């Protein structure tokens, strides 16, 4: 590196400019699925896609509360009307009959294609007679006025069958004034389905804004007093957690920067040097975001939040440089001394995070790339740019004053070795006793949504009768028709199991869209015009029906017999279409049908019954169990990569230090710090998730700098007092920067903040305790240069 100073500063400025341009144009996402593996089994990929873009991800549940029922119902109507006009929503309903009328008309028009009882026998003279006799019974029933008006069109009662089957699926919410309400009647309920997928947060945000605006207009129109709007759903959560993470990351990194700056200002007594300290940090953060943006196409919100914490490590580089510059010396000379240690510290962290880069989880890979690019740029700026910018003759005065007392403390620190050993043994014992309980293996533990909001969502889901995520059968095939045909076969099996009491019921996309084969078979089951008329006449001979009553039936049956089979488009705009979309989906060229099961009482019998279907097409899934298992596997793999990272660090240190003893001096305090930090987290009632794991890796990265500087008193020829002081300042900056983050309300940020703050503090203390006492200034580091 013999470039002149001007050229170096110029290159740096150019790099910053390019990075800033890239960052300004970056896309940001807050998609939880980024933290799920990118190359799992087809079934897992289907689940993840379902979470990202399936109908479930597009559903918004809207509640209106805080007024009397009359006003709430009026608001619900007004809001529905406004949202129906919007092209952001594919479907909006508040349960009013009007919105279900389209469903009824669809069923009626296509009853002979949809009803499972349409068979050849159904339309023989005997079959029709059976049906007609039942109709006479129905006519004498007290509620005949509701069912009877279809009789001339539907003498075999197909419509009633279809309605019965639908009603078996879900009871639906309570109603007041014809509109959906919560069970306690205090909240009017609506369901809206966005056109945009759940992971398209910008579109979800706009849809949410439109709901709020439409609600505001409705309140004015109805002149309600002070009603409240509650909107939940995956898209809403994504929008809110993104803005929450942004807000938290912004607020707490500003707060952290201010606090760290205050300390540094006290130490440096120079605003200019303080500003210079932030130069490597800012350069590193910009480079990190730019690198992620270029490689991955978008930057995850968590990466960003995590990136804000880069302050913790990158700020250290400048602190080491400034604090170690003795009076009369220059930063250039200091760098010549501490550069090998600085470089090794940076490489250690980079190796740690490097493992994450290859983890195969987009979220973790982003973190890895961000850290490596950020740290490399930060250390390079410290090495080649920063010295040129320091005012000539500058040195840190405070450092000299603190030095002697720190050295006295350090000299006595080794007395604490035994207590520390006991502490570590206790920590290991606690971890061993807890075993796998240490981990929170529920996917929801990653959810950035605060608990009270999750509870409201659950409540509204229960009120609407939205199906719980429970056991379901997933059928897959290459084509839509194929998947529908298999679903129909599975449906026959399930219907049989249902009569045996194995399950209470099930839903199937083939209920709403039978396969073309089935539709054709039903069409063929209808006899031609003359034969049907003959059969009908024979059937009605001894029954009291007026002649000519069933003329509409004869005509409609022939119309249906000739029409083209139904397609998914025919269901557009109906509630049944919404159901079909939820149950039938195409993902990456493959078709999937979902068949949710209700109240399975005998899983073994169910599995036995299903065993005759091809396992490669028909899978019984417990959605929640499957997702948690997915996360569990993911966490295990992440743990594996963290361990790999630690191994990589050990190999790196061995290669550079060429001594097991010295390696141990660097690594043992860190291992102790990680163990004790984990136990402290557990003691506060926390169960560890993936974010804690990443934070612990960061502890190793940051802490390795301390132990490297401590080890043998630091780089050759340095003043040990200045080394110790610089480590203390670095540590203070890290603990404050991350400690502040610990108070963030976004679970991710607070987990990382708390863990790193505790871990970094312990790393320094343990390094001080475990590193052999310093005999005085040493000169043993020359081999590193």
């Amino acid at each position: 590196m013999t470039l002149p100073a001007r050229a170096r500063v110029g290159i740096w400025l150019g790099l910053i400019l390019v990075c800033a341009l890239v960052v300004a144009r970056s896309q940001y996402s807050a998609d939880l699925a980024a933290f799920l593996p990118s190359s799992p089994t087809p079934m897992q990929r289907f689940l993840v896609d379902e979470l990202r873009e399936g109908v479930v991800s597009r559903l918004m549940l809207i509640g209106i509360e805080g007024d009397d029922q009359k006003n709430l119902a009026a608001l619900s109507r007004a809001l529905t009307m406004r949202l129906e006009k919007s092209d952001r929503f594919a479907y909006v309903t508040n349960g009013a009959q009007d919105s279900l009328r389209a469903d009824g008309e669809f069923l009626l028009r296509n009853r002979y294609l949809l009803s499972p009882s349409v068979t050849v026998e159904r339309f023989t003279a005997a079959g029709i007679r059976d049906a007609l006799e039942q109709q006479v019974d129905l006519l004498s029933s007290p509620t005949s006025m509701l069912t009877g008006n279809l009789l001339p069109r539907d003498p075999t009662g197909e419509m009633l069958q279809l309605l019965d089957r639908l009603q078996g699926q879900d009871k639906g919410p309570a109603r007041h004034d014809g509109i959906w309400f919560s069970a306690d009647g205090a909240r009017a309920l609506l369901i809206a389905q966005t056109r945009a997928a759940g992971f398209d947060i910008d579109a979800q945000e706009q849809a949410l804004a439109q709901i709020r605006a439409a609600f505001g207009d409705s309140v004015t129109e109805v002149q309600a007093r002070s009603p409240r709007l509650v909107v939940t759903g995956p898209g809403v959560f994504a929008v809110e957690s993104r803005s929450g993470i942004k807000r938290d990351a912004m607020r707490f990194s500003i707060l952290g920067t201010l606090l760290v700056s205050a300390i540094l200002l006290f130490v440096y007594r120079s605003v200019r040097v303080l500003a210079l300290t932030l130069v490597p940090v800012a350069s590193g953060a910009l480079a990190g975001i730019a690198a992620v943006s270029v490689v991955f196409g978008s930057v995850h919100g968590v990466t960003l939040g995590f990136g804000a914490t880069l302050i913790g490590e990158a700020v250290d580089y400048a602190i080491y440089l400034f604090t170690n510059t003795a009076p009369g010396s220059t930063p250039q000379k200091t760098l010549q001394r501490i550069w090998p240690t600085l470089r090794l510290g940076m490489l250690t962290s980079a190796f740690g995070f490097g493992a994450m880069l290859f983890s195969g989880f987009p979220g973790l890979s982003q973190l890895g790339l961000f850290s490596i690019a950020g740290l490399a740029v930060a250390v390079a700026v410290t090495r080649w740019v920063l010295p040129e910018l320091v005012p000539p003759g500058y040195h840190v005065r405070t450092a000299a004053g603190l030095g002697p007392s720190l050295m006295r403390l350090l000299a006595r620190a080794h007395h604490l070795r035994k207590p520390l050993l006991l502490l570590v043994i206790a920590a290991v014992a606690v971890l061993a006793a807890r075993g796998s309980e240490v981990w929170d293996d529920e996917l929801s533990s990653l959810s950035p949504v605060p608990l009270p909001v999750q509870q409201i969502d659950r409540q509204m889901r229960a009120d609407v009768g939205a199906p719980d995520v429970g056991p379901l059968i997933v059928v897959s095939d290459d084509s839509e028709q194929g998947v529908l045909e298999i679903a129909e076969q599975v449906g026959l099996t399930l219907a049989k199991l249902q009569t045996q009491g194995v399950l209470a019921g099930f839903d199937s996309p083939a209920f709403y869209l039978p396969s073309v084969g089935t539709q054709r078979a039903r069409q063929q089951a209808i006899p031609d015009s003359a034969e049907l008329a003959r059969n009908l006449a024979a059937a009605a001979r001894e029954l009291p029906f007026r002649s000519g009553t069933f003329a509409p039936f004869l005509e409609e049956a022939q119309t249906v017999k000739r029409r083209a089979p139904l397609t998914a488009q025919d269901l557009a705009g109906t509630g049944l279409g919404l159901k079909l979309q939820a149950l039938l989906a195409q993902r990456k060229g493959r078709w999937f049908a979902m068949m949710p099961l209700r109240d399975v009482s005998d899983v073994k019998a169910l599995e036995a019954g299903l065993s005759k279907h091809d396992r490669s097409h028909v899978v019984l899934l417990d959605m929640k169990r499957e997702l948690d298992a997915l996360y569990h596997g993911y966490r295990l793999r992440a743990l594996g990569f963290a361990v790999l990272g630690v191994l990589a660090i050990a190999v790196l240190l061995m290669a550079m230090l060429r001594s097991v003893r010295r390696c141990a001096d660097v690594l043992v305090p860190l291992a102790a710090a990680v163990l004790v930090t984990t136990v402290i987290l557990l003691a506060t009632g926390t169960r560890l998730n993936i974010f804690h794991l990443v934070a612990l890796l960061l502890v190793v990265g940051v802490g390795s700098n301390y132990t490297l500087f401590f080890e043998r008193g630091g780089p050759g020829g340095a003043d040990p007092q200045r080394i110790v002081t610089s480590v203390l300042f670095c540590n203070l900056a890290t603990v404050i920067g991350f400690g502040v983050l610990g108070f963030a309300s976004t679970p991710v940020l607070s987990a990382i903040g708390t863990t790193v703050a505790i871990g970094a503090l312990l790393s320094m203390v343990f390094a001080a305790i475990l590193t052999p006492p310093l005999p005085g200034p040493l000169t043993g580091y020359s081999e590193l240069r």
Partner: protein
Amino acid sequence: MRAFAAAIFLTLFTAVPAWAEEPAVQWGVDSLMQQLSAIKHSQARFVERKYLKVLKEPLELSGTLTYDRPGYLQKRTLKPKPETLTVADDKLTLENPGRKQRRVLKLQDYPAVWGFVDSIRATLGGDIKALERFYRVELEGQPANWRLFLVPRERTMKEVISLVRIDGHHARIDTVEVQEARGDRSVMKIQEEVP
């Protein structure tokens, strides 16, 4: 001219007895309702004829009616096939032992059924508020021979029922006639059982 005279005559003929019999008391819907609401329990037999457009001859059903103030009504059909309709507060149960069927509905979910059920239940209970929720109520006649016209207010009900006519004397109901929107009609004659 003769028609005009006949009209006047008719008006007089029907109007006179009302004030001739009880000229002092202002008899109307409210007093009828008050009278009806005094009855806590009643038990009756019924014979119902359903005149349906699709059938050549009317269906004839018979059975018993039970009412308990304020919210319980049971219509037990015995012939031609047993079937029981029970309404308790806002829950309606239909039982058909022949088909082994039992259905429970919430009246709120089926406004038309609710309106139909309450045309009888609210009349028996003398609950004018419940009646007026679904119907415009008009009364004709005198205490010993009155006729109540119930005309549905809301569209959902109008699509099913166009008019309910209830005939009675004093606090007794004699006939309930339901005219359905699509032209069918049922007439239920009620014979009170005196305990």
